[in-house]
């Protein structure tokens, strides 16, 4: 049984159908990449999984449990952490406070435990330790991304949802972020990664899915996807041979 299973999930913003029957699965211990052009429905997929958006139809299962329609608070308690697009570090709180709040789903944890775990996070992300007392809004994009991931990991998730971690970051910083992502998987956390930057995503992923206007177009191992013409056209157009397109 896969850790996360989506079957024929349909989701809409008002009149717009963002997901038109999506089926995918993520096995425990994997890094799976979700690719596609802007507007393809990648972020929507994560929002439906983490409970920010209810699905219109279809089933979502996490560790065997049905999670479609649950509130975000309930889903994070089950072990799904969502690091949303744009990082969304709390601007008026310090780095340390942001990270500690990541443990808000762990009701039984004491303040001391959370502080200790925060220290462990600084061990994983040594680049942000010097900034632990800095307010969120003063950080650079790359630093914010580290904080956001650390905050997500504080909830001790089984599944980490990462939405466009490389967005707006300089290439060097992106490499640092992806080093962290690979490390995270090594510690046993499963990762579902949404990216526009296909190269980076496929360089760490075990498998990839490609979305186009809310539907799955192709999926498979990174080498196969990279060679696939469909992946290119999903991003850059150029498909001339098929009629009606």
């Amino acid at each position, binding site marked *: 049984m896969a850790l996360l299973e989506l079957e024929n999930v349909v989701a809409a913003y008002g009149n717009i159908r963002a997901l038109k029957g999506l089926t995918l699965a993520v096995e425990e211990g994997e890094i799976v990449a979700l690719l596609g052009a802007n507007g393809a429905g990648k972020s929507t997929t994560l929002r439906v999984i983490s409970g920010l958006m209810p699905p219109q139809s279809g089933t979502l299962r996490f560790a065997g449990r049905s999670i479609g329609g649950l*509130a975000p*608070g309930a889903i994070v308690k089950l072990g799904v952490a969502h690091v949303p697009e744009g990082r969304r570090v*709390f601007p008026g709180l310090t780095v340390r406070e942001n990270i500690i709040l990541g443990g808000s789903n762990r009701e039984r944890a004491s*303040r001391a435990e959370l502080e200790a775990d925060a220290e462990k996070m600084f061990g994983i992300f040594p680049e942000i330790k010097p900034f632990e007392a800095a307010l969120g809004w003063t950080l650079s994009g790359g630093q914010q991304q580290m904080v956001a991931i650390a*905050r997500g990991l504080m909830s001790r998730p089984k599944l980490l949802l990462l939405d466009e971690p490389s967005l707006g970051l300089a290439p060097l910083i992106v490499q640092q972020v992806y080093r962290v992502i690979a490390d995270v998987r090594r510690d046993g956390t499963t990762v579902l990664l949404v990216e526009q930057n296909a190269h980076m995503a496929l360089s760490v992923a075990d498998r990839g899915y490609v979305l186009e206007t809310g539907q799955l177009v192709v999926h498979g191992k990174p080498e196969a996807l990279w060679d696939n013409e469909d992946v290119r056209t999903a991003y850059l157009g150029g498909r001339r041979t098929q009629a009606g397109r």
Partner: protein
Amino acid sequence: MGFNLQLLFTGIGVGSIYALVALGFALIYRATNVVNFAQGDFAMLGAFAMVVLAIDLELPYWLSILITLALMVGFGALFNLAVYYPLRNRSFLPVIISTIGASILLENGVLAAYGPRPQSLDSIFAVPGFSVGDVFFDSQYIVILVVAVVMVVVQYLFFERTLTGKKMQATSQDKEMASLLGIPVIWMIMLTFMYSAMLGGLAGILVAPVLFVTVGMGSSIALKAFAASIIGGFGDVTGAIVGGLALGVIETFGAAYVSVPYKDAFAFLVLFGFLLVRPQGIFGERISEKA
């Protein structure tokens, strides 16, 4: 010189009341983006509760204060459920109107229950105050200042040192992100209203021995506190305090040097001035260009 110092002291005392109410505005605004037009009526309720408990029921003063504060906390919860929660997803206009309706309901409800005659609460101090040179320090004003300072410190400690305080801050800064982390957003907002109502009630308890306790006192304090918030920067905690104190001082000096009946008008003239020239106030961020 002594006269001016006296005015300054009185102005700061009055300003502290405005600051407490403005603080309540700021907290609710940050958490919910709602301007609560009934904020001043929390003060009015606090004052009337004191009258009922300490005078009519002849309970000891300290007990009356505790009961009033407890009642105001409960009232804040009720207010949230009845006025804000049903409208939390609608645009700002229905919510503003709803809080205005609540204000009218509260004022006239109390009016119906208690009648229009202004009440008064005697000062509890055996010593009315003491003089230093030309300046007379009224005991009640000293208490107001001290309590205001204590509240600000307590609030600072709560928001900066406790985890719940941090969670409430997180909720005001990014509600959706807070919910993603498992922070109980609805409960955080409830706490905000409860605390804010208590602050308002406290302002009422403090000011009751100084002013006449009337049904309309809440509205006039609220308008001043609102003006103070605009001057200091809406939603900014420091701005609420600075704006409140500044307004109290301006008003007191204005009443003494210019005209007493129009002293209320000063608040609004200053408010107009800021709204036209610098709407974001002293500490506020630039009101974003309309996009």
